[in-house]
């Protein structure tokens, strides 16, 4: 089988991006975009379809099994993990690879996703007291532990932009775990941050839900955290629960 990759590239410190087309033959029906990139980079001589030399393609990669989020990129325009993208699943003869657009491009397919870390720091997303994990909260705490911080949900989100006030689901998911584990008193300041950076900015398009490579139950966590932050606490204060 054969496929052509159109890869959007950029040299470090250069301004301009450019596209290079590379032909790739493969046999394994389960071959992934990630492995194809590795094989191309292993070639002694890399050439594009016109015969021009191609330098090593820079991209981030680590686990190769959908568990670390390193290799997030745009594949035919859709954000996803390169290790989760099977070549055979694409009906097109060409597969376009490009860096995520919502983050600064470092080089080729590598983007600087440090905004994800900065946002969580800004929200002071950590346990401010001893965890009190109730049995019915276990599934939410587990689910909230699964975020890869890959950035795919932010890429697809109509409301998120780097530096904006809305931090998106990549912040909501880890915060959901922490909210679940804190008692009512200890979670007050995090609730304030939650309302400011997540609840008020989410347009509920839930594009994130379908795009998440870890298939995290974003909707469930969002409902849970919204309930904890927005109405349950108040209800309890007034003796309603």
């Amino acid at each position, binding site marked *: 089988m054969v496929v052509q990759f159109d890869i959007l590239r950029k040299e*470090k410190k250069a301004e301009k991006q450019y596209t290079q087309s590379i032909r790739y033959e493969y046999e*394994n029906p*389960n*071959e*992934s975009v*990630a*492995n194809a990139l*590795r094989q191309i*980079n*292993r070639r*002694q001589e890399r050439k594009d379809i016109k015969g021009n030399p191609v330098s090593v393609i820079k991209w*981030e*990669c*680590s*686990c*190769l*099994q959908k*568990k*670390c*989020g*390193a290799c997030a990129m745009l594949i035919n325009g859709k954000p996803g993990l390169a*290790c989760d993208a*099977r070549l055979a699943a694409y009906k097109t003869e060409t597969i376009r690879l490009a860096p995520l657009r919502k983050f600064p491009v*470092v080089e080729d397919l*590598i983007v*600087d*996703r*440090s905004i994800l*870390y900065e946002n*969580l*720091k800004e929200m*002071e*997303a*950590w*346990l401010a007291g*001893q*965890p009190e*994990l109730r*049995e019915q909260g*276990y599934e939410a*705490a*587990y689910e909230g*532990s*699964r*975020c*890869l*911080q890959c950035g795919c949900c932010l890429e697809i989100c109509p409301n998120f932009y780097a530096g904006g006030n809305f931090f998106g689901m990549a912040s909501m998911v*880890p915060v959901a*775990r*922490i909210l679940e*584990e804190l008692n009512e008193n200890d979670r007050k300041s995090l609730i304030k941050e939650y309302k400011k950076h997540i609840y008020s900015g989410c347009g509920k398009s839930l594009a994130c839900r379908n795009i998440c490579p870890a298939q995290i139950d974003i909707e469930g966590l969002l409902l849970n955290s919204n309930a904890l932050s927005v109405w349950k606490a108040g209800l309890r204060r007034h003796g309603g629960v």
Partner: protein
Amino acid sequence: MEKINIIGAGLAGLSAAITLAEGGYESNLISLQYSERAQSVLAEGGINAALDTMGEGDTVNEHYEDTMKGGGMLANPVAVRRLTKNAPDTVLWLKSLGVPFYQENGTIILRNFGGQKKKRTAYAKSSTGKVIMNALIDGARKYEKKGLIRRYPHHEFIKLLLSKPADGQKICRGVQIKDRYSDSILKLYGIVILASGGMNGVFPGMTTGTTQNSGEVTATIFAQGVALSNLEMLQYHPTTIGISGKRCLVTEAARGEGGRLYVVRNGRPWYFMEEKYPVLKNLMPRDIVSREMYLTVREKECEQQVYLDMTGLKDKVWEHKLSDLRNEILYYRKLDPKNTPIPVEPGIHYFMGGIHTDEYHRTNIDGVYAAGECTSLYHGANRLGGNSMLGAVYGGKTAAMHIMKNAEEKGHDFAEKTKEESMESYRAESMESLGEESMEAPAEASEEFVSALGNILYDGLGIVRNEGRLKFAMGKVSQLEAACHNDREKNRILLAKAMLNSAIIRKESRGAHYREDYPDRQDEYYRKITLARYEEQQLEVDFVQIQGDPGISSE
């Protein structure tokens, strides 16, 4: 005191950084990528501690004995005593950081794991590593904001900054690192904790690990004089499946929950582990299971594929304990393990050997510590399932505690003085004895070279070894050495030779090291550490005594 420089932001590195921060000490957390990309997130099954919550009367002593015996009595007994004694507190520390271990009525539930008769493994479905990492990342964030932990993500380790004063012993003054995004090179002064993970990149594409655990750090520091030990001890995990570009682990919990291994013999399934080992059956230590698989498929009338049969597991087990595993197998194999046995093969999974340390995680060079999978300390000749995360978390913590204790003993003045003087004294010393430090990043080893070297080593260091194959591999490595282009390639050759030499001189079979030409264990000669050193341009691999009395018979 200067900041402590931690190389690697996985379990061991995060554990060290948080422990230091809890004690008010500052650290630099240096890693190629953010913690979410660390190999620790792949750890599945769980973490061991004799919490004895299952009414089986488990004890610390049994955890100690299982670890020592499972490791072929080759681990440091003093260190393993401390590890197992502190395991319950380590797991409770993780719980206090918010790790959602599976619990009932607030009690941590434990499960069975290989090489252990009692339930001792705390878990969160089959993603225990991920949930522990997540809680540690959140825990570290608090100290990042306070400035006690400073992250250097996308930074690459280049080398240790060593100086050699008149008394002749090398001292570490810090590290040189490179920002992969900006290409700038930095020197950070202070004590170093290496937490750089296993040497997966020595066997590219042939292990269950990540591409980022390249082995580069271990190869570099070895060439700089840090001693390594037990390099011949590679763990082949019995149950892996090949996926695009690597091997994917099928957690031991699959067998802990009742999964059975079989081969087809004369047209019928033969549950060979159950027949050969009636007590622990499919849960024998990993080295034994892998070797039995290797030998069984070569027996007469047996087909050449081993299957893992999980069809007898209850719905509740799939739902609460192994849901992620089932999804994974469905995704990669298009098979539902609930209904169909799945084909599995052994694959390289863990490096018991690595940087040689004492029980405080000190290496042979003053100012350099090591913790986590890069270290050789707790697991001897074979690691028990559930002990790797324990070793990483406790190891990082222990290194940090020792650094703080030392600093406090020496007093505040000393620490302040060191801070002011170290840079100057380092410069003076280094120029005297080790030459001016280059501010150029070294050239990388080519992928082609790394791949060629990996294939040679894989042939020599398989599940079953013999002198002929090992020496043949050594010859090939020497040939490849002639084609070396740069220092990093040379360092890899050095590490490869040390690995092969370790396997050649251990003329016995113990744990993961099985020699068909010497199939018996020889405690009298070989219950010793294989120590590899590189000094004065000379590679030496030799046996040294294990310090401390294990206090149990080795049988």
